[in-house]
């Protein structure tokens, strides 16, 4: 992936060949500006690669998008200022004409992220973390088989974050979704994923992939597991190596 | 030689043979000979009254109704010479429309120019007991008057049955649209006793009473007299040497001189126009060697007519006409 920039071009991603199997939980981790968002946007068919090929769960990004196969939590909340919280969450349901009681569904998602009391608020009346949670609720609302999440919990406190980690994991296990998850937290990546993809900066490429062999269901004691430490250390090593 | 006095004269229309006398006087140096440097201003959208009353021009040409209504509204304009002694205003219809006399106008659509140019038509119809929507007090007019700008081809013959036309301009333009004179019924208002005077020269009381016109050392009235003298000389020359006059006009007239349709040649159209305005000039007092003289009887008749139409509420003040300028210009009484 090459971006033209004043006085040359930025190579944002190089040889980032990656095949993601259905039902996987993949985390992307890497230094700021290494191309995590770019990779996610490529997988979501929001930009087209300037070279290379990419498949997501066996199909092309475009096919996946056309099937409305994925939900995307952007790095910024990207809420519509003129819609209140509830109707922001309703948006995908309306656009996709999802049958059933949409409001009930949207409210359920808001409950999941702890914002059931704020459904009538407008985005500017919410704190940064609350906005981020609305956007998570929005992405989950239509129950997509595939989830792209770009630092979804970055603006949340540890406790809320851990709670949502567990919720997400439960959801993933129960529904068999495929998740591609960007995070800066090594422990979060290890805790959630089946594989952690570590990226390096400029030009962005994949430094290494760490498979996580922790049993499910995972919980507080998972973090005590020696395998957890081992995996986290490996990820940290890869990160450090890529950071120079 | 002494310096010439700059004078601005506002024409009532765009340069064309209608003003041949002025252009001839300018081209042949008649104004120079009187010590005047005359600039002839083409019309904009404003009435010549406005430009003269506000001092943007010193003198102007206009129609008498214009002058008298302005005077009634308190604008101190003064008539100083009458160039055309007969009205060239007509209403024109197709012979096929079956309109043979003014009485037949009833129930017809009449297209007139707005902005004070509608009065001859209004007067004619009023004389025959017809009312129009131009009068805001009439609720059920017997003639539907519509207003249109200048170009008869916009409305005639499709959208109106009768259309206003000057003998010297629009009439020929209508001929150019494909209607030769023998297919047209022309009602010239002067044939029906409506002879509202047209092209005259005027100025303001302030200009005329100036003791030192623009620092020239001449009085305003003296400048006016010189202007009128040279202009009449120009007109006499133009009427006698029409071909030469048309040549002079054509030099001055930019895009406006052409006629319309099949008669769009400027040369041909202006030749027609020159001949027609000559008829309006060579009438009344001019025939008695008193060109430029405002015949008091005709003036009185005009005033009476305008009062009967309700356009004038009372007689204009005596100061509305200043015969001294014409007298000084011609040495006649």
């Amino acid at each position, binding site marked *: 992936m090459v971006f033209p920039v004043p006085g040359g071009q930025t190579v944002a991603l190089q040889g980032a060949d990656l095949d993601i199997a259905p039902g996987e939980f993949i985390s992307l981790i890497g230094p700021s500006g290494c191309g995590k968002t770019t990779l996610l946007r490529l997988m979501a068919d929001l930009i087209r690669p300037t070279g290379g090929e990419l498949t997501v769960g066996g199909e092309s990004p475009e096919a996946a998008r056309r099937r409305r196969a994925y939900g995307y939590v952007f790095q910024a909340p990207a809420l519509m200022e003129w819609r209140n919280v509830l109707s922001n969450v309703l948006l995908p349901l309306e656009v996709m004409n999802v049958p059933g009681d949409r409001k009930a569904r949207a409210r359920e998602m808001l409950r999941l992220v702890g914002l059931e009391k704020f459904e009538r608020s407008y985005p500017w009346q919410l704190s940064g973390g609350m906005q981020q949670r609305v956007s998570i609720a929005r992405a989950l609302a239509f129950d997509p088989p595939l989830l792209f999440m770009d630092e979804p919990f970055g603006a949340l406190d540890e406790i809320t974050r851990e709670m949502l980690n567990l919720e997400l994991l439960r959801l993933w296990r129960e529904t068999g979704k495929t998740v591609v998850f960007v995070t800066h937290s090594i422990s979060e990546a290890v805790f959630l994923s089946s594989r952690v993809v570590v990226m390096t900066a400029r030009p962005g490429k994949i430094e290494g992939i760490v498979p996580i062999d922790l049993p499910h269901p995972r919980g507080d004691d998972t973090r005590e597991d020696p395998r957890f430490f081992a995996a986290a250390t490996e990820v940290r090593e890869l990160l450090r190596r890529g950071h120079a | 030689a002494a310096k010439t006095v700059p004078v601005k004269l506002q024409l009532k229309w765009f340069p064309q043979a209608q003003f041949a006398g002025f252009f001839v006087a300018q081209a042949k140096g008649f104004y120079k000979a009187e010590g005047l440097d005359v600039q002839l201003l083409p019309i904009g959208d404003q009435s010549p009254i406005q430009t003269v009353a506000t001092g943007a021009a010193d003198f102007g040409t206009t129609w008498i109704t214009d002058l008298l209504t302005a005077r009634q509204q308190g604008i101190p304009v003064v008539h100083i010479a009458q160039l055309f002694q007969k009205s060239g205003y007509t209403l024109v219809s197709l012979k096929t429309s079956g309109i043979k006399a003014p009485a037949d106008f009833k129930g017809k659509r009449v297209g007139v120019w707005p902005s004070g140019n509608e009065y001859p038509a209004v007067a004619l119809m009023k004389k025959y007991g017809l009312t129009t929507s131009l009068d805001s007090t009439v609720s059920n007019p017997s003639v539907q008057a519509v207003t249109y700008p200048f170009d008869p081809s916009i409305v005639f*013959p499709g959208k109106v049955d009768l259309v206003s036309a000057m003998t010297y301009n629009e009439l020929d333009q209508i001929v150019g649209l494909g209607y030769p004179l023998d297919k047209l019924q022309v009602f010239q208002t002067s044939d029906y006793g409506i002879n509202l005077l047209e092209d005259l020269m005027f100025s303001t009381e302030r200009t005329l009473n100036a003791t030192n016109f623009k620092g020239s050392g001449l009085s305003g009235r003296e400048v006016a007299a010189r202007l009128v003298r040279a202009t009449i000389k120009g007109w006499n020359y133009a009427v006698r040497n029409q071909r030469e006059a048309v040549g002079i006009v054509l030099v001055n007239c930019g895009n406006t001189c052409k006629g319309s349709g099949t008669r769009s040649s400027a040369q041909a159209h202006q030749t027609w126009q020159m001949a027609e305005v000559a008829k309006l000039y060579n009438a009344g007092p001019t025939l008695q060697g008193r060109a430029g003289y405002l015949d008091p009887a005709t003036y009185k008749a005009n005033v009476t007519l305008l009062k009967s139409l309700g356009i004038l509420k009372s007689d204009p003040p005596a100061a509305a006409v200043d015969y001294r300028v014409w007298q000084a210009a011609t040495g006649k009484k």
Partner: protein
Amino acid sequence: MLVANRGVADEALRSGADLGCGTAWQCATVLRNPVLPAPGQFAAGFRTLSTPPLAPTSAPYNALVTGSETLLGLALASVLGLGLATLLVFSRSFERATLPWLVASQTVPIVAIAPMLAVILGQYGVQGFLPKAIIAAYIAFFPVAVGAAQGLRSPDALQLDLMRTYRASAWQVFWQLRLPASLPYLFTALKVAATAALVGSIVAEISTISFSGLGKMLAENSRASDTVALWVIMVYGAALGIGLVALIGALERVVTRWRPAR
């Protein structure tokens, strides 16, 4: 084109006009006073009015005159409009006291007051080029003012907060934040204003005592019933308008170079 003229031709023929052509359809392309000129007629008219290009009676020369009046008018309008927009944005009470009058000024038919305006300006020795530019500016300043005011109000709250933390002066907020943020609005407004200014200067040429310009040509030719010439002049006017809009578009691209290509 044919259809537009056929009606007129038909009407003329039925009224007994001698057009020198047979049926209405045939006449449609040769009418001397067509609603729309036939291509051949137009081309001929275009040639006569365009040559020699710099003669005082030719369209290119007069378009040049009108174009420069319009540019001057637009420049005046931009300064005035931006100034007003700034005051409107800075002061609620100024807005309350003047906005209705600004709006009212735009409902006064310019054609009715342009002659008076020209006459009044003429008394003070302002003649020729300038009154026409002033009239153009009179029409064009309003779109600029309204658009710019909207744009000046468009920065987002966080950016305003940032300037507040710097204790930036009102002028700094204006120059560093409000003005750049208003550019998308401003350029849209300028495009509308440019065509308005063009119309304004043409109107001014017609209604004041003017010796040149497309407006003068329009007036003369409409008085002379020369429909084909009117169309030629209209095309020149429209080309001028497109040129102005394109010019502003180019300026916009230069000024807002920072934006992602769409």
